[in-house]
């Protein structure tokens, strides 16, 4: 059970939270390409390493917020409010090692997978 630092309430047990998927997936209903829209709906980075994800402090202050977590160690590096940009964690080599060989976030362009 994780201990998640809510940006409003401080560290609280995972039982109070609801996970809400990857963060910073930009919603643009004007996208004309079905592939691009499909990628928005479904494609996820699913990073092995540090990931930006959303949580809601559902049984708490009710706020959605973002969280940088290492999906290998499950360590939480930072939480920040919705709307704020993803913090640039200039991790030193030692921290990276401790977090387990952190793969850079694959910010690959939306897959044209379909064709």
């Amino acid at each position, binding site marked *: 059970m994780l201990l998640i630092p809510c940006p409003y309430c401080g560290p609280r047990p995972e039982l109070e939270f609801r996970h809400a998927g990857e963060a910073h997936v930009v919603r643009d209903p004007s996208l004309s390409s079905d592939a691009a829209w499909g990628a928005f709906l*479904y494609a996820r980075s699913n990073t092995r390493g540090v990931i930006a994800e959303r949580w809601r402090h559902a049984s708490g202050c009710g706020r959605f917020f973002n969280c940088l977590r290492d999906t290998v160690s499950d360590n939480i590096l930072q939480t920040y409010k919705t709307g704020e940009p993803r913090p640039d964690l200039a991790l030193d080599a030692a921290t990276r090692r401790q977090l387990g060989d952190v793969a850079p976030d694959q910010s690959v362009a939306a897959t044209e997978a379909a064709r």
Partner: protein
Amino acid sequence: MQFSLLNLIRQSFSANQGWTEQWRSPAEPKPAYDAIIIGGGGHGLATAYYMAAEHGMTNIAVVEKGWIGGGNTGRNTTIIRSNYLWEESEALYNHAMGLWQDLSHALNYNVMYSPRGCMMLAHNTHDVQVFKRHVHANRLFGIDNQWLSPEEAKDVCPILDISKNMRYPIVGASLQRRGGVARHDAVAWGYARAASALGVDILQKCEVKGIRRDASGAVSGVDTSRGPISTKKIGVVAAGNTSTVLGMAGVRLPLESFPLQALVSEPIKPLMPCVVMSNTIHAYMSQSDKGELVIGAGTDAYISYSQTGGLHIATHTLDAICELFPMVRRLRMLRNWGGIVDVTPDRSPIIGKTPVPGLFINCGWGTGGFKATPGSGHVFAHQVATGEPNRISAPFSLDRFVSGRLIDEAAAAAVAH
């Protein structure tokens, strides 16, 4: 050496000194293969076996970063059934069901497929509607799945509590008699042995770290922890790690990897004759041949590659199990572990091409792919060998996430596996 009772007895006279390796373990990979399968789980090994056995491709290798069967194949609760809702799923899972029937003979390896019945409990009107819909759809497809009254359910599984005053009374159940379990490790080992016998190299402790592509963008090889290997065709069957492997080729997939936990009790004398699942209160249980109760828990809520999970998942599972089976409350948990399952938005697998020529994927089996192992390997072998899907796997291609033509087993049924 052929596996048989006769050979067992013969070997027992020579103190079992005559048995040899069940599959070859080449010290080093060859510099090039006609195809490489990434992932030595049941699906990957089955793929290689059918490629060799049915498509004559024997210059191929299965590349496994750890030990074969050490992924979800070695961690799953082994429930086998094919009573899915949509025709595409019915065809796929029932294809596997057909192959299970005689798999032990086909592989000359006792995979202990045990069709002891898989029962799914209905607790409310909605469950009844959903399960009956399955029963009817399955009948049309020729899949055995029957509707049971609570009393009939109790006849099949006498330890069920069907009293009306429970918090979640059992109002009925569906039963697939051919559903059941199999010995997970044996499935991996049996396919490995049979594939190896046909010439397939099984490379363990060999992690794929990069995918090489030629000027046209097509696959040209892989970089592994044991050096580069050339190939023109790659089948990725890496379950929870699929996104990571595809990331090496710059492809983002509709997948998220979650920890899924399971646990076993201490062994006890036979108590449960069949598999029982309750999706409404999130519990499922069967008993292994050794006597442990094998219990599946839910997924954790977040992406993780840690093969563990939270305590609250186990507590929620066990309160449900004790609720359904009050006599197990005093039994004890022996071991609790996790696997990493790759979940798609529609809870159906992705089988087919990727945007990268020569790179194929078979993934997204999520919480329920063990049952499909033979079928999945069989259809994917066709895909990798011929470059094209077959009739059964065609609907499971990646482009459904563009068109919206999902095969949404979750939406229709809220069934997790």
